[in-house]
């Protein structure tokens, strides 16, 4: 089991998120996960404020990567204990500009060029590589 507040076993978390992608999202999207979970309480996902009863990992599904904002996207809130996933619709990115370094790319559909991906601030060169996974 993944402990809240850590980013251990990211593959397990990634697979859980990818399982919840729609068919359309599998065909055309870019998916990012913040490895630092949000604590319980009020949290901002995109421009929407939500109330979290438990800590949640946040995944961001960009449904039209490369398009100007605002455009359709989804936030997936993952309970690391129960493994339940809650979806929140959105129309904007977690932040404008580069994502904080705790975010990582976990899925890009075929044909999504690099320029369509959100930039991620890098803390050191070892973290530069962007990871992609196959749909489980």
């Amino acid at each position, binding site marked *: 089991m993944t402990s809240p507040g850590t980013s251990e076993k990211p593959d397990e978390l990634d697979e859980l998120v990818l399982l919840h992608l729609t068919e359309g999202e599998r065909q055309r999207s870019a998916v990012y996960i913040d490895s630092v979970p949000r604590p319980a309480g009020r949290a901002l996902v995109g421009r929407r404020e939500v109330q979290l009863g438990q800590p949640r990992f946040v995944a961001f599904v960009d449904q039209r990567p490369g*398009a*100007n*904002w*605002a455009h359709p996207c989804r936030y997936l809130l993952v309970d690391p204990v129960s493994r339940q996933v809650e979806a929140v619709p959105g*129309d904007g990115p977690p932040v*404008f500009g*580069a994502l904080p370094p705790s975010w990582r790319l976990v899925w890009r559909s075929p044909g999504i*060029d690099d320029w*369509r991906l959100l*930039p991620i601030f890098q803390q050191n060169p070892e973290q530069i590589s962007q990871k992609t996974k196959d749909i489980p």
Partner: protein
Amino acid sequence: MNTPLTPLRPVLSVTIKQAALASLTPQQAAVARLSIGGSIFPAGHTFKLVDTVLTVKQDAALVFVDLMPQANWGHKCAYQFYDPATGKLLYQQDALFPPNLAGDIALEVFHAPLVPIVPIRPVAPVMPVSPAVPVAPATPVMPVMPVLPADRAIPGQGLTRALVSDVQVPASEVVEQRYAILWTSQISDLRHVEDLEFMWRTLVNVYGFASANIYVLCYNGTIGAVDVSGAVGNWAGNNTPYEMSVYSSATTANLQAVFNTLGGKLKPKDLVLIHTNNHGSTTGLCVDSSTVITPAQFGTMLKGLPAYRTLVVTMEQCFSGAFQNPTLTNSTAANTVFASAVDANTSSDGAAHFDPWALALIEALSGATAAWGALPSKPNPNLDGLVAIKAACDWAKANDTGSDDDPQYADQPAGCGSRIYLGLSPALPDQDGDVNADGCTELVVTSPWGLGILEQLGAKLLGLVVTPNGTRFGGWLLNTADNLIGPLANFSGGSQAEIFISSPWGIGILKLSGATMTCPMLQPNGTRFGGWLLDTTNNAFGPAADYDGDGADEVLVVSPWGIGILKLSGSTMSAPMMQPNGTRFGGWLLDTSNNNFGRAGDYDGDGKDEILVSSPWGIGILQMSGSSMVSPMLQPNGTRFGGWLLDTYNNIFGPSADYDGDGSAEIFITSAWGIGVLKLSGGTLVSPVMAQNGTRFGGWLLNTADNHFGPSASYEGGPVAEILITSPWGIGIMRMAGGTFDAMMMQPNGTRFGGWLLNTADNQF
């Protein structure tokens, strides 16, 4: 006690005005205001100038020279006294107050500063007592207009710009300013900033916008973007440093401040371009991650502007179509165009560099890629090769690579975008003609101050009419801020040219009468000329020509509805021809949204003028026939006229004139390949002259990349028209000779024509 005054004879008044103007240095001419008294002041006449008295030494006419016309009194000025018999300057006295502080002396202003003098500062204190021989300045101090448009030059006389420069004729920049607001947000990506830089370069380098008139609101007040940390580096277009100057950060307050600034500047003939390149939400244009400018807010900003001529709004951000109605509804411009990448419900596409729709739009406007390379195809130009906003938007829609974009377009009045160009309006659209029927051509010039009609007299120009705004010509109230002058033509027949004039109120025809003008015809908008409903907000007038062959000229009028020919009829106009879009003129399908009309001439030598028309399909010649038109010639692109391959996307139609002297007009045509002369022959055209770049016309090396052609005229007199060619090297006059041209005259830059120093880098013809 002063004795009663004797009126000054008008002929002497003219001579004295000329002498006074000639005495000014160019610097003085740019700032001074000259006025003349209508009387002869006898010796001993006194002017009470607050704390001094100026006594006239001998009988004289007075020219009062105000050297700081925008300053409060007292300030430096001069009293020039002229011989009332000869018009020669007798002497000059400097002073600090005018002669008419009490309003008891009538002065006629005949020269005024052409640009506002800000700040007020002292100017050259005195003028020479004896007028110097006027010498044309090597480089005009003020921008000046081309003197002889098209085919109206005085045969055998070289009316030069040197003469015009003596009276400081303004370029149209003086009365027509073009402004731009370029906006990204504080959350923009670098690609948005790249678009802004491309637009900025296009406006400045292609269209000649003053960089000070472009308000760039970008990011945090610097050239930056949220997806870039540190310096942005070179511009992606051609890998050179950014050139645009950022005015302020992209905040709502700063945008409102720019609108406030424009509100204090805009004049009736000005143009404003607003381009936003950015993110957007369903609620509005993004400012930062939590703030937007709503369509309603934007509309309120537009509504706060004064009246002006043209507003063009182009928006790239998501949901930008939501701004269409607020823009059209709240615009205070006479003509408004709105274009956006998407409708009100759609997100717009991005790209690695540049947003696709914005890129395509700016490419269409610039005529080149961001790397300044050739476009794979061209927007549909008019006969001069100019691309209207509508044509640019059409091209952008067709070449937008953003698969999810859905470009929108609207204009108000409908169809106006087909005749809106980002360049300056032609400085002299047919503003010359023989207005006093003396056999010579006169020029009509305007400035923010008023209007003048200038006639060449020896080595100078004589002001036949020099009148400030506010003057009534019959019922027409002169206001050069919103009056459009031209075309000049013989609307009533005979030998005297009249002046066609239009304004937001309506139209009129002015006719010279002594030192003023009468207005034999003036009608307000809403008047029906036959069936034609006059509406100067969307009617375009010209060219004027004798379409029906009765010896009097008519004027072509084009609107979003169709076209008409208006003919002076007593105190109004009639419309002997008017037809709506969709009409077939022979084979030509009328569509004023993409038809370009111009270059009237008697192409078939029948004594009636025809008109050249082009479209994306090809070209035609239209001839009036009863109450409609016929097309004796129409041919599609791809047609060979002799050896000339027609391509209206890449051909520029130069002045039409009788180059071979056979009594029929021919069409001068250019392309990137070279030049040609096209002549009507049956139902098509032939090309008696075709010359590839690299050809030598005598000593002139043809290169259409940097040669400019026109005006055409019979520079040597006689029935054959020649054409003026200019290049970075110098100028030449070419005459058709068999299947080629000969250089009758060619001179390099640096040559002095009398006092005029030729420099094609800043001379305009």
